[in-house]
């Protein structure tokens, strides 16, 4: 009974949470809590087969299906607060509470006596719960079991029919896409090759930094349209300014050692790289001095 008294409040709270949470994903997760707790209660009630089936079928398959559909429909599809029938919400709560009171008053007036139980000597689970269930399923309930298979096949076919969508235009293949590209190039002058990659700078090479065109302006085609629509594209000019700073810092080196300045300016490296190149310069200078 300990498991019951631990799990029952959790289950009731999680179930109440389904009524009040705003996001459907949270409702699905709370339902998972209820279902796993139920599975443990099944194990307590000497139904190990249903314990496994509850976890595999309900929490494993059905809830994952719910989450998949939530992702397809859109996670933020939350409830509208507009009532189409006036007072429906309040009436629903009233009806539900009255129903609960009637049910609980009725149930608490019944006495059930001591439970027979399934495990133990001469119990129904003798020789294994799964074996005993299989004996029942394939003897007394065999017709219902066969009908179940028909139901499952109908459900699978029904889901395929409902999810199927007739294609109105033929799907564009690789050859068609290539031909369309060339046509766009001849008619509109669209660039024939692939899109330019994002910019690579001394401190940033993420996909949200646009590349620079030869005239110094950012290339709009080098970042994803989605990022541009979200407004999370970095300004390329501020990043490119670093290059000027670094060349200014390297100015002395540029003046004294003109033979390496071109390389240092072109790579526009970070501070560490800068230090490394400086050190490199020093070593090279020493070497030169020794040579002299």
């Amino acid at each position: 009974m300990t498991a019951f008294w631990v799990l029952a409040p959790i289950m009731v709270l999680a179930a109440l949470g389904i009524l009040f949470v705003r996001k459907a994903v949270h409702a699905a997760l709370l339902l998972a809590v209820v279902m796993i707790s139920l599975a443990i209660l099944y194990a307590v009630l000497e139904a190990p087969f249903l314990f496994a089936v509850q976890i595999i079928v309900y929490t494993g398959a059905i809830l994952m299906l719910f989450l998949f559909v939530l992702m397809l429909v859109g996670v933020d599809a939350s409830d509208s607060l507009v009532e189409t029938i006036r007072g429906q919400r309040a009436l629903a709560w009233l009806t539900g509470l009255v129903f609960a009171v009637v049910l609980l008053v009725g149930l608490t007036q019944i006495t059930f006596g001591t439970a027979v139980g399934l495990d133990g000597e001469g119990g129904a689970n003798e020789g294994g719960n799964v074996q005993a269930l299989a004996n029942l399923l394939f003897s007394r309930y065999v017709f219902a079991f066969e009908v179940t298979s028909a139901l499952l096949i109908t459900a699978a076919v029904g889901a395929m029919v409902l999810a199927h969508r007739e294609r109105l235009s033929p799907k564009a293949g690789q050859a068609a896409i290539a031909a369309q590209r060339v046509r766009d190039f001849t008619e509109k002058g669209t660039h024939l090759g692939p899109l330019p990659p994002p910019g690579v700078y001394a401190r940033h090479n993420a996909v949200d930094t646009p590349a620079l065109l030869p005239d110094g302006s950012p290339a709009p085609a080098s970042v994803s349209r989605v990022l541009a629509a979200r407004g999370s594209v970095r300004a390329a000019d501020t990043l490119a300014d670093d290059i000027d700073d670094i060349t200014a810092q390297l100015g002395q080196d540029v003046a004294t050692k003109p033979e390496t300045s071109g390389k240092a300016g072109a790579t526009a490296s970070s501070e560490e790289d800068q230090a490394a190149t400086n050190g490199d310069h020093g070593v090279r200078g020493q070497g030169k001095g020794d040579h002299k």
Partner: protein
Amino acid sequence: MSLTPYIVLSAILFTIGSIGVLTRRNAIVVFMCVELMLNACNLAFVAFAHQHGNLDGQVAAFFVMVVAAAEVVIGLAIIMTIFRTRRSASVDDASLLKF
């Protein structure tokens, strides 16, 4: 071990599920509440099987699970189809079905 607490818990979960079906507007959450009601019934079945010492209740719970799986598959496919045409998963927006 007494049966009453299990049946009371089952009744509470069933009531919460029915209130959810009546008050929530998101079709998927309504579906989850239907699942909650089915699970509450399953708990009652299993508890009674334990009380009476035979497995018929567990077989019934097993069949309920199978039917629930089939129902979820079809129901979610219908919700997807409605969402595709109406861009909404609210149960109120599908009211034009009657015309």
